């Protein structure tokens, strides 16, 4: 239907279709399809595990995945100023809700990250990730545009407040990703390498500090560090799942790891994929992530607008890091972190937040008239 539109079509949808990055959009929708398949594979066992109705469990995620598709497209329709406005509002709301979880949050597995709404538990920190990336990008690029603006200071203060809230929850995995994304943005922004290095050192020191300060961080790192010692139970199961899968997998629905891993549908969904579909399909998924990230970054080389570069760069970095950390920890490459695999893992908050992020990415990377001729003077970012 969309493909039938001619280039002469100047309606909003027509303009969108001809300016959007088709390849990234295709990759995103392919990922959503994989998410659908994996949810069908992993969820029934998990639903039985946690004692929920299987149909409602699946139906929920079907609704979320559909909503994610619609959301991605809808957000990608926005103009630059629309993206910025959405991010600023979204960042504010998500931050307030994140702080609110500390007060009214639902405790699940030792951390209060969720706000209970009818029908779903909302994890606001998931939304904080893409919205903060865009907000920080705007703050930084705005200072470049008008030197009197305290963009850097504001971005750092905001980052500090978010870090504080996430530390209190505690949600160290999310905190790490947000800090790393912010770090990547300062790096891309062209900040003096000495400062970048100092910041990197600070993050490293904080990581070491977290190891000694938080017991649950230590519990995750220790088994990982002792290569020959006791491995993490879940990682052993995950590795066995990959091993059982081999090149082409046991076959759809034939997986067994989902029966024994309570997190098979969320953090360890990649192990289910590996067991049921094997190396080939898993490689395709890794390459889809790699494609979205690398294409997103390389396309920014043609971009002149600092806001677009930082915002899109931050979104892509966050997306890529989250995917890599999830897959890496499932395969025993990294310590286990409570982190979802974008679009593939079960969970409303995760899917919707990633959809927001990818929608904004698509919106930011749409071909714009006049883009590449000026620096920071695009219509979208006019004061």
């Amino acid at each position, binding site marked *: 239907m969309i493909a039938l539109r001619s280039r002469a079509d100047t309606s909003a949808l027509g303009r969108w279709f001809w300016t959007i990055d088709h390849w990234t959009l295709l990759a995103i929708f392919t990922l959503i399809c994989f998410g659908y398949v994996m949810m069908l594979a992993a969820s029934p066992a998990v639903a039985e595990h946690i004692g929920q109705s299987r149909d409602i469990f699946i139906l929920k995620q079907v609704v979320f995945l559909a909503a994610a598709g619609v959301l991605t497209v809808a957000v990608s329709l926005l103009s630059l100023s629309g993206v910025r406005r959405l991010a600023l509002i979204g960042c504010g709301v998500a931050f307030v809700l994140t702080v609110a979880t500390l007060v009214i949050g639902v405790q699940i597995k030792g951390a209060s990250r969720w706000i209970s709404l009818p029908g779903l538990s909302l994890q606001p920190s998931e939304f904080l990730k893409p919205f903060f990336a865009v907000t920080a990008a705007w703050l930084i690029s705005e200072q470049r545009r008008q030197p009197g603006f305290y963009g850097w200071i504001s971005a750092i203060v905001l980052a500090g407040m978010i870090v504080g809230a996430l530390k209190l929850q505690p949600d160290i995995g999310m905190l790490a990703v947000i800090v790393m994304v912010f770090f990547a943005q300062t790096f891309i922004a062209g900040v003096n390498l000495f400062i970048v290095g100092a910041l990197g050192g600070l993050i490293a020191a904080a990581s070491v500090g977290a190891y000694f300060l938080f017991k649950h961080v230590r519990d995750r790192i220790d088994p990982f560090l002792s290569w020959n010692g006791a491995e993490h139970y879940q990682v052993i199961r995950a590795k066995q799942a990959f091993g059982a899968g081999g090149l082409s997998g046991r076959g759809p629905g034939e997986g067994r790891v989902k029966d024994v891993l309570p997190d098979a549908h969320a953090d360890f969904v990649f192990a289910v994929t590996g067991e049921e579909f094997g190396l080939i399909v898993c490689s395709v998924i890794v390459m889809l992530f790699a494609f979205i990230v690398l294409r997103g970054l390389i396309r920014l080389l043609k971009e002149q607008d*600092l806001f677009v570069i930082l915002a899109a760069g931050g979104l892509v970095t966050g997306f890529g890091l989250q995917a890599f950390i999830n897959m890496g920890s499932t395969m*025993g490459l990294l310590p286990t972190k409570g982190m979802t695999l974008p679009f593939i893992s079960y969970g409303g908050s995760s899917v919707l937040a990633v959809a927001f992020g990818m929608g904004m990415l698509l919106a930011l990377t749409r071909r714009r008239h006049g883009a590449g001729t000026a*620096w920071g003077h695009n219509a979208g970012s006019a004061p």
Partner: protein
Amino acid sequence: MPARRLGAADADSVPRVETVRLTRPDLDRRRALNRTHGRLVFASSVFALLFLVAIGRLSWVTVIAPRIPAPGDRPTTAFFTAPEPRDPELVAVPLAVPRGPRAMITDRNNEILAISLPTAALYANPRELVDPEDAARRLKAVLPRLDEAQVRARLSEPEKRFVYLARQITPREKLNINTLGIPGIYFENTERRRYPMGRAAAQVLGGVDVDGHGVAGIERFFDRRLAEDSTPIVLSLDVRIQAVVRDELIKAMESFRAIGGCGIVMDVRTGEIIAMVSLPDYDANHVGHATNEERFNRAVTGMYEPGSTFKLQTAAMALDYGTVQLWNEFNASQPIKIGRFTISDFEGKKRWLYFPEVLAYSSNIGAAHVAQTVGAERQRAWMRNMGMLNRISVEVPEAGLPIVQTAQAWKEIVTLTVAFGHGISVSPLHVARGTAAIANNGVRVRPTLLAMVPDMIPPDAERVMQQATSDTMRKLMRLVVTDGFGKTSEVPGYYPGGKTGTAEKTGRGGYQKKANVAAFTSVFPMHAPRYAVYMMLDEPKANASTYGYATAGWVIAPAAGRTIARIGPMLDMLPELTNAAKINASLAMPLQPTRPPNGVRSPPVAAVPPAAVKPGRTPPAVAARPAAPRPSPAMPAHTPRATPPTGAPATRDLRHEASQPPSTALLAAQYTAPSLVPAPNPNR
């Protein structure tokens, strides 16, 4: 290019000053943008690398080095397979199903001591149940041992998806339950550990818990080995010998109303433990119901003061260090007073005793004097050499640590008391091993519960004394049985030698006068030692047949003798009666030997410094006594029995000595020479 100024002349259209002011930020921006682009390239490279690593790792875990779970998994237990060696966390997983059946344990003749039989456990998934009440009722109908109310309660837990209902389901019961056709009821293939010999060797085997893990003994010591390797473990035990030892111990326990007992038979040459019994015991099939007292393995865990059985150690030590000669005499006429302690003899002779007499009559005073000639330091070194200070590395986890004084606290009083087995607590196995080492040509072996390959050189064998010392000690041990307190253990044709020991049990705040541990440690046959036999009764009570005595010579030495008589033929040893005279002659040892014309051993005892005896406190214990009347003229050492210990039999207190009637045909055959037939017991 900056914009032209409208309305200006061509030459003047681009003002120089303004151009500079405008282009600097522009250049800055351009430079910043170039830098940004460069860093974007760098970030892309990093991500490319990360994803390459991810693909590489993916290939590694799926194809290159996959971890394959064990085959035969069912969905419910999919990954709860046998724990991998470096995975202690998973050992505790309740659904663990061992790889194969747990390995058998057999005795040295391949008699099965422990075997795993396949059985099924009944479990249910309450979520799949339609009607828990009905299901519970129908299950109860075919499985009467179920508690219906409990089953109903378990089946009515909808938040669970796994509840055990019953273990050890027989095939018939399984068929009946399957016939019921209740959805949500499943079987888990498990195994059941059976001990066909029941109580025999219960403490050695230990037992397993409901999940099939060893809880004690061999089952625990070799838990992983049994689970992973299904080839049987062959023990050194011989279940027939085990049964005999247990039988004799039970009889003795009942006769003397003892609270417990212990028996060990060990091959002195290899260290293989042929029997190890501890009473009271339990049925290994129901280790869960056994009391602590029943599970307690006295042979290795119980630490008892060895009492007079340790005088063998004292004698061997002094002979080996050369501080004492056989013809030396020791003053046992009066108690030794040291500090606030007094060392006295039980029913003592109240006279000077020759060295063999010290052993035969079990004189505490004499033993203390003997130990004095050696001194604290060398005594402790001897004990260490004999393994009395350390845990025995036998293959049960219960092996205990002896209770001994530290080197600093090993003062003179300790030297004197350890000489007769007090002030030190060791396990019966320690005593048996020490006795075996003395008899086995002075070679100490490591006790083991595992069968050895025939003709295998025993590992960790170590010479701990001279051959000559062992030769003399064998004669002395034999003397204790032929002429001393151990007469009741005599078995014609098996030539046992040994030593009795009765020690008061230590309790709250000192020794308990009424509570004894009576032990007899022995080896047979003395002319070619093969087996050590140790037997012990805990808190025996005297009865009429023992004239009110509950000492070892009365209560346990006879049991040891009967045991030797019964197990000898099982160990392929028939009574050696044809060469009895020759054998007896080779083992002969006079109670009161004379100094040979040319002293074989030097230095003379009188020259030995009175080791730890402080002058003035006690009279010198060891001294030449030329003035003392010799009870008999000097006789050559090879015809000892021709000289009855003059005077001694008349004054000897026979109440706790031999009471075994020697007038059997066998004995008559054994003692061929008329002069060798013992004089009739005046008290009988």
